[in-house]
């Protein structure tokens, strides 16, 4: 290994001291390993001085998880090979082998165009590729908004997205993991192979270390969740590492599932005369026999934001939608053939009309091009929020938006909506609410106009977190905890649960050197 793989001239790498949370940190050194071997040597070198290690992918996270506070930064964006493919006949699934630094956008592009750099692929992989090419089309379903995220980052916070309503979060699509521990030792995990049984974790590392530990199992919320370690008394060990935010080990390789692509996709953007009717629609749509792949919510302020900021000829023209139809729901329908797709569309249309919607004012995307346009429409809300905040930061540099990421169990949707609306109204704050209503998972974005509004918002946010925890919900359903929301995790879990999580942490990283500050603050 060249000696200069660990860079000490960190002032040249200033952009690696931050992520999308816009928190700025600091570090003594940084490295960009390009292979497992290089990573191992970096870790062995760091072990000599017991330096702490912060892991990074594309730094698209919103919670400061990739922001170093001290020590060394390992940026994994150069371990970015798609290294093989396997077909599992029993599961009828293709598994793509990837390194942590591969971007989601690259995975999507490669899988949809079937273009892979196969120069280092094994014969088995090449056979699987042949098989893939003759199959009807596959895709990797997790779809967080930010497609420039790395797969390593997605695994570390169990990323999801709109379509996880149907297909589940990243967790459901990771078949195997190769994890490097902070001392350079590795463990291989495969779904169904390494198990926790009766709360007892048994594992042997590549280096021969035997791990046998009785874990204190705690109760997790029954919602889409990305807060703290996933633990049940009987489970696959792999699930402990997915969503662990890089605090247990470093993903050096993963196998991710490619599932059959629906042949017929419709994107429906419906508008309703009031929020209650929109929620009525959602509650029934969830129970449809063939339910939508995604259900996304826009409150009237979110739509208002688009109305006020849309520019010519780019986003679908929301000015054509009568202002009284002020609450929007996006539903995406996936079907394996056109007839069944049409059937789903008819059922959904009837429901839209039942709930006060108008089919002549309900957008329908059929072509990929129009699907893209609706996607841009959906993503416009957070983008406009960011640009408003950027403007305000010119006069008040420490201002940031406050974005929630909480989800509640089934049955609490109306309660939580009421809580948000009332809280915002009584505090007199500017806000928009949008997000994954199918999973009872909404993003409230508060746009403070001053630091005092920021403080008010933050207090409100804390109160909501406590209430959501009481409802049995989660403080972070998809963004993770990182450094930003460590205090929120404490509102969600008791000290006992946190102690139990810390015990797990000590099993794999006794020196608390890996991603220190994440999860536990």
């Amino acid at each position, binding site marked *: 290994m060249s000696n200069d793989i660990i860079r000490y001239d960190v002032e040249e790498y200033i952009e690696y001291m931050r992520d999308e949370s816009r928190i700025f940190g600091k570090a003594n050194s940084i490295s960009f390993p390009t292979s497992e071997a290089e990573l191992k040597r970096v870790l062995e070198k760091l072990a000599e001085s017991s330096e702490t290690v912060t892991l990074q992918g594309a730094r698209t996270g919103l919670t400061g998880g990739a922001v170093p506070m001290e020590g060394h930064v390992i940026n994994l964006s150069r371990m970015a090979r798609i290294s093989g493919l396997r077909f599992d006949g029993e599961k009828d699934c293709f598994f793509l082998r990837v390194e942590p630094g591969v971007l989601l956008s690259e995975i999507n592009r490669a899988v949809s165009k079937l273009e892979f750099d196969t120069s280092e692929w094994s014969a088995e992989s090449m056979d699987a590729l042949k098989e893939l090419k003759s199959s009807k089309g596959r895709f990797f379903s997790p779809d967080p908004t930010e497609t420039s995220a790395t797969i390593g980052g997605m695994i570390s916070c169990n990323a999801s997205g709109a379509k996880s309503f149907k297909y589940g979060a990243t967790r459901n699509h990771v078949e195997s993991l190769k994890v490097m521990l902070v001392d350079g030792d590795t463990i291989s995990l495969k779904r169904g192979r390494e198990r926790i049984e009766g709360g007892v974790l048994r594992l042997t590392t590549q280096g021969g270390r035997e791990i046998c530990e009785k874990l204190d199992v705690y109760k997790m919320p029954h919602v889409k969740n990305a807060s703290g370690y996933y633990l049940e008394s009987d489970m696959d060990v792999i699930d402990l590492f997915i969503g662990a935010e890089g605090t247990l080990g470093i993903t050096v390789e993963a196998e991710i599932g490619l599932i059959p692509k629906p042949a017929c996709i419709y994107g429906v953007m419906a508008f309703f005369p009031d929020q209650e009717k929109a929620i009525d629609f959602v509650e029934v749509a969830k129970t449809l026999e063939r339910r939508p792949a995604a259900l996304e919510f826009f409150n009237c302020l979110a739509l208002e934001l688009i109305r006020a900021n849309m*520019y*010519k*000829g*780019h986003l679908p023209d929301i000015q054509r939608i009568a202002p009284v139809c002020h609450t929007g729901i996006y539903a995406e329908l996936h079907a394996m053939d056109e007839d069944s797709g049409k059937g789903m569309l008819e059922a959904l249309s009837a429901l839209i009309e039942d709930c006060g919607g108008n089919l002549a004012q309900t957008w329908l995307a059929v072509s990929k091009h129009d699907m893209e346009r609706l996607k841009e429409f959906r993503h416009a809300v957070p983008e406009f929020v960011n640009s408003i905040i*950027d403007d305000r930061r010119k006069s008040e540099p420490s201002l940031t938006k406050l974005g929630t990421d909480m989800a509640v169990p089934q049955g609490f949707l109306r309660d939580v909506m009421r809580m948000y609306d009332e809280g915002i109204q009584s505090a007199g704050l500017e806000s928009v609410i949008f997000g994954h209503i199918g999973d009872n998972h909404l993003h409230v974005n508060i746009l403070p106009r001053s630091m005092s509004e920021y403080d008010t918002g933050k207090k409100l946010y804390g109160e909501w977190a406590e209430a959501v925890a009481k409802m049995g919900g989660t403080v972070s359903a998809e963004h993770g905890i990182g450094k930003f929301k460590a205090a929120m995790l404490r509102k969600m879990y008791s000290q006992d649960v946190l102690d139990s999580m810390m015990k797990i942490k000590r099993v794999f990283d006794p020196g608390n050197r890996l991603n220190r500050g994440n999860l536990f603050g």
Partner: protein
Amino acid sequence: MAKIIVLEEKCVGCGKCINVCPFNAITLENNKAVIGDACVMCGACERNCPFGAIKIERIQGYEQDISLYKGVWVFAEQRGGETAGVAFELLGAARRLADRLGESVAAVLIGDGVSERARELIAYGADFVYVVEGKEYENFSDELYANACVKLAEEHRPSIFLLGATAYGRSLAPRISSSLETGLTADCTVLDIDEESGMFVQTRPAFGGNIMASIVCPARRPQMATVRPRVMKKPEPDFGRSGSTVMFLPVMAGTPKARLLERIQEEGFGTSLSDAEVIVAAGRGICDSKNLELVEELARLLNGAVGASRPIVDAGWIDHSHQVGQTGRTVAPKLYIAAGISGAVQHVAGMSSSDFIVAINKDKDAPIFKIANIGIVGDSAEIIKELIAQLKSKQAKSAE
């Protein structure tokens, strides 16, 4: 009828045609290429088959004695009381083509009180100038101008007819070619005569500028083309040249059904980009529409204009009038600074004749560097900021 056939004895089933077919119209059956209904006879397979196994039988539906057609014509577009620059550029090209063919060059001059401008056209290379004059021709009219050109062409039978690919030229030319039932190639960048056949070979960007296509019009005359302004070099005028002016009165000009009511010429509108000596152009790589302010500031400091690539125009960051490229404007400034522009061929088609090109891009492999004189790899916004700072401090110094 014209048709496409696979010569089965030559086809080895290599599948190359399948890959090159833009319409996914070809499949392999029993190891032979089979051409399906999606085929539009673009000829990609025929041109790319290594074994010559695909043939398009081209039968020309039209019959015409092309030997009767001689001479290279140029439409002398009038604008604002003078001849448009593109007409002189085209005369240069026409002269070159006509000399190769041993034929003459003629200009078509239409307008009201325009005949004195014939002298200039002769100086730039015309042997004849056909003048169509009259009050009714005062303003450009697609109908009247097309009818006059059609009548002229029917009577004098040119072999080649060139028009500027300006707004007027692109609107007028298809009416003429449609009426004469002949071919027309739009937006040519290279014009040539094929040594062997003597055919007029017209080259233009195709498929959004991703590829160049050379097009011929084998059996119909005149062979018509429009050419982008500033693509051909304007020749030096020779006012000693002799040539003749032919007045032409088409029967019954009539009243056009489309009439100009008003012309709104805005100060600096549009032309600023085409005429600018310095252009600072921005592309997607500037990351944020707000960084356009930096681009504007740099352009101001350099007394230049602001250009843009298609993606940021499409994204609504900037008005279409700033777009440089195949679907925007063709420019040829002395200095072109491309900030955050990757250099898609269709953009390059609109600015590659700039004298000096500075490219700033994050991606060191961006194609824009292939045509640049100076390349800077880095964040465009950062580097523009620095350039602005440097220029400002220099200006402050020189003001002292």
